[in-house]
């Protein structure tokens, strides 16, 4: 069941990728390091817990230096010795575009995360434990992101952008009756590009 669920996610993920939905829009892709930490108290944490995120940004509105836009993404993260997760996330972003190609970026988001153990699991069947995984854990993941981007061609509205993001997010629920929620951060390095101009 565990792998069936994962495969379902991957199928949806690939469907999104291959869809024409993205044909005229930018693709954002980033690698990130996830950590359980209190936001803004730490930056680059070790050991590395790698993640990969891919998504797109919709056109939104541009006024003065501000660009306001919705964005969606899917991603995978692997927290060593503890869990792996797949998620889908919707965000609302506000970029402040300076004249020098540098963009100050903020986003708030809400996503769905499904986590699975990275280790062998033992499930209690009412009388004893058996070697069996569960169906994983359903979570919501509200997030707040800040960061910087740099347009490689500042006068081109479809310029490729390199960005760095600090995303703080909450995993909820975490362990009901024990630990209500868990605080995480993802530090992203990524790019936004237009595959078809």
């Amino acid at each position, binding site marked *: 069941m565990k792998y069936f669920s*994962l495969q379902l996610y991957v199928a949806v993920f690939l469907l999104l990728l291959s869809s024409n939905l993205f044909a005229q829009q930018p693709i954002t892709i980033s690698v990130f390091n996830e950590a359980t930490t209190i936001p803004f108290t730490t930056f680059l944490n070790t050991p590395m817990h790698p993640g*990969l995120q891919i998504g797109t940004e919709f056109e939104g509105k541009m006024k003065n230096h501000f660009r306001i836009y919705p964005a969606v993404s899917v991603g995978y993260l692997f927290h060593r010795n503890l869990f*792996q997760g797949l998620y889908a996330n919707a965000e609302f972003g506000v970029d402040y575009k300076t004249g020098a190609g540098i963009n100050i970026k903020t986003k708030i988001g809400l996503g769905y995360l499904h986590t699975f*153990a990275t280790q062998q699991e*033992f*499930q209690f069947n009412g009388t004893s434990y058996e070697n069996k995984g569960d169906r994983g854990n359903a979570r919501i993941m509200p997030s707040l992101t800040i960061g910087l981007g740099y347009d490689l061609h500042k006068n081109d509205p479809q310029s490729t952008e390199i960005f760095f993001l600090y995303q703080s997010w909450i995993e909820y629920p975490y362990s009901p009756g*024990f630990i209500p929620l868990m605080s995480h951060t993802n530090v992203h390095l990524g790019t936004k590009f237009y595959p078809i101009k």
Partner: protein
Amino acid sequence: MYKKLEITIMLVVLALMISCEQDLTFPESYYDCNELVNSPNHPKEDEYSNLISEIVGSGVPGMMLTIHNNQNGYWSGAQGFADLSSGIRLSPCNITRVGSTVKTFTAVTILMLQEEGLLDLDDQITDYLSNNQIKGLENAKESTIKQLLLHSSGIYNYIQSLKFQTASLNDLTKSWGPDELLEQARGKDAYFAPGTDVLYSNTGYVLLGMIIEKVTGKPFYEVFEEKLFIPYDLTFTQFAATDPVPDGIIRGYVDLYSNLNLINATYYSGWDYYTADGGLISNAYDLNKFMTNLFQGDILSQESLKEMMTWVAPKDGYGDGFQTFYGMGIFRIETDFGTAYMHSGDAIGYFASMAYFPKQDVTITWAVNGNYGKVDEFTQSKAAMEKIYGTVLGE
């Protein structure tokens, strides 16, 4: 280009998906222990066995229990599994982690050092610890050794730090040294002025371990060995610092998400395997021998034992638990079966508890290889303890 990107991403995701690790499996001989930890033909053997069976059957991987009374000597039993992946049954002579029960050993060692004239409980801790060691620990400059022992120093408990809790979850195999743990408490407000109340603080016991080292010139766990493990024949007992996962230690499991879905936490480092507030490896039998010797034997002089049992009630009460009073590395609780002197301890994946009932001269100790989430309800809640005490001490 688009197809290539698609294929690359698919391969990366699939590679990561299959990264679920299987537990190491061991042959039965890995957990072999043949030492006798039982007096044969105990009259209540069936009752005790049924108790363990009931607790294990509620969702605990394995449980070992030892009872001592003066009429029948020691009885030890175990049920469930030492290792779920390998399918190895638990034996009462297996070794396990017993967490904070070490605080009783730490306190007894300090009292022994006082008996030897090497320190005085009323000494300021600054007599033994440098400014650098206590830097940023509010109340440390004003606290005495006695206040550390009684949890009445008010010094912040590093385990309460959210930053520490998330950091330990982030790096589950990190080895935390004493300085790193103290760092988590530096700059934090003390709970109260020294000597005005009591509140459990692991930080105080980290400092006590450092005081033992200062006074003796040896690692504190070597002092435990010399003064307690060897003289009192605690052959199953050792400290984690030199060998965090010794051969034969039973696997520990955590119910992290409160759904009785366990993962193996044996190789998680814990945070107190190198400090005198945790890190003890033992079993229910050895803990029972230690407690029985402490309260019926000659580990401490009567004067020291009396001083150890200087009871202080917390001003905030004791919540829904037993009525509780703080002593030095020991608690006094009031149960339906009378007073008990006790201490419990968690490690990641493990729990142990030891209690001595002076009225009945009975010592009850147990250890389990599962904790957190729902498992705690069966092994360390007030209801679970009442059930165990009731089975042993009830009519």
